[in-house]
């Protein structure tokens, strides 16, 4: 399966300009709130108009200058944050009404919904609602599935179990999946490829390991967990470059190469969060020990990248 997307849309804050080609698999879209992630998915599904561009799915034109297929004819299913289940229909009817496959029983048992078929959506738990939403999508036989913050409506404690269900179900899907989230860890578990969006533009795209371990852009580094972005002057390198370091990759020890002073120490469950100042930079470090304010410390950088 092959999807070519080229979308341009003017929004009040920025211009969305996305041009990618993607094949079967799960693509994670990571970006901060309001970066245009959801809007991009809506344009793709035909729920939001855009100014110009082209969408071609398996040689079928979904959108260009002359053609603009309605959402019904695009074969692109969208799962909303609150799932949009039909409240007047039981679980079974919710699935049936969308079904383009002959046998929905297989989907029902795959999504573990056998015991819930005659229940109305408002009586289901968040996780169950999500399984119905996925069953409904699979029954509609889409080529592309769009998941917009699929876990944001669920309690944090429940997410892990439900994530497992979702990963299992999506791994059997033979199409393209786009999953939008601002949770980097969640996306890493789901996706094979990652696309970083900022202000409506693709900053970086590639295999997840490359993006997470070796980001090429500052925005990417920030989004994938490099919480310290400081001037390369610290290591006597080109001051126009930036050093990106995760707080857990900084070690406070007695014989560290760099001197700093503690400005704040916040207690946390596993590791305390220590803010230290070195030259003009404030650096966030996680450490088991508690440090007093204005304590002199030295530290080493265990792992970092320079962009």
């Amino acid at each position: 399966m092959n999807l070519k997307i080229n979308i341009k849309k003017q929004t009040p804050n920025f211009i969305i300009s996305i041009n990618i080609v993607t094949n079967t698999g799960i693509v994670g879209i990571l970006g901060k709130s309001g970066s245009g992630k959801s809007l991009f998915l809506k344009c793709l599904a035909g729920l939001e108009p855009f100014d110009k561009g082209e969408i071609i799915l398996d040689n079928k034109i979904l959108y260009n200058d002359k053609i603009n297929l309605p959402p019904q004819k695009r074969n692109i299913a969208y799962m909303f944050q609150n799932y949009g289940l039909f409240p007047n229909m039981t679980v079974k009817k919710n699935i049936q009404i969308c079904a383009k496959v002959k046998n929905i029983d297989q989907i029902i048992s795959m999504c573990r919904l056998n015991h819930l078929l005659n229940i109305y959506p408002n009586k289901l738990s968040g996780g169950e609602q999500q399984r119905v939403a996925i069953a409904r999508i699979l029954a509609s036989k889409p080529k592309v599935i769009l998941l917009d913050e699929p876990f944001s409506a669920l309690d944090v404690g429940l997410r892990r179990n439900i994530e497992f269900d979702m990963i299992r179900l999506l791994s059997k899907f033979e199409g393209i999946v786009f999953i939008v989230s601002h949770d980097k860890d969640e996306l890493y578990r789901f996706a094979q490829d990652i696309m970083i969006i900022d202000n409506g533009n693709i900053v970086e795209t590639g295999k997840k390991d490359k993006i997470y371990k070796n980001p090429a852009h500052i925005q990417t580094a920030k989004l994938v967990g490099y919480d310290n972005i400081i001037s390369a002057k610290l290591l006597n390198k080109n001051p126009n470059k930036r050093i990106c370091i995760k707080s857990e990759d900084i070690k406070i020890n007695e014989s560290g190469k760099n001197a700093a002073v503690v400005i704040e120490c916040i207690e946390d469950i596993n590791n305390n969060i220590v803010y230290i100042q070195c030259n003009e930079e404030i650096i966030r470090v996680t450490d088991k020990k508690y440090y007093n304010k204005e304590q002199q410390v030295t530290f080493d950088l265990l792992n970092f990248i320079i962009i």
Partner: protein
Amino acid sequence: MHSPLILSLQVAIISTIFTTIIGIFFAYVVFRKNNMNGIADAILTLPMVLPPTVIGFFLLELFSYNSILGRVLNFLGISVIFNIKGAIIAAFIVSLPIMYKTVLARFISVNQEIILSARTLGITESVLFFKIILPISYKSIITGAVLSFARSLGEFGATIMIAGNIPHKTQTMSIRIYSLIQSGNYKEAYIWVGVMISISIVFMLIINKITSIGENAGYK
């Protein structure tokens, strides 16, 4: 020979049937077409704010034997003026905005995620409307219909202008009450007032009952 009660019920029932169907239709059209809904909404709401006499005047002009429509209807053997049909049209016009507004408000409040997911799941617009939007909006539709019925039942100003005050032909309950008071027959007027109040109370109770049913169903 028809009593004012039968005439009033006849007018209200027939006009409510039309109001319900056409009110839902217009509400859906306005709901779907955002670009035109300012003007369309103003026109559809107009009968609610205009005095019934003004509506009656327009209807008289529209259906008079001098107008094109009046002539066409006359040719077809249909007379509207000084006829029960006129009373039904008047009741329909004044009650349409009630139905339209009630249902439109409901359509607008339907959770967008329901509508948009349905579309991306390949559900056609007609299935979406008849099997999803309409059933979720049933309470508002019934409320709108009952209120329209009550409004039709009590319609006076536009009705008297277009259908007149002909006993046993166009004299509905509200017109009968007017006539009785004019002629000083307060005793019978009280009876009809009692009938009207009773019917209205029954309908309000019905609405309350319906709107409380499934309050916990969580329809959004």
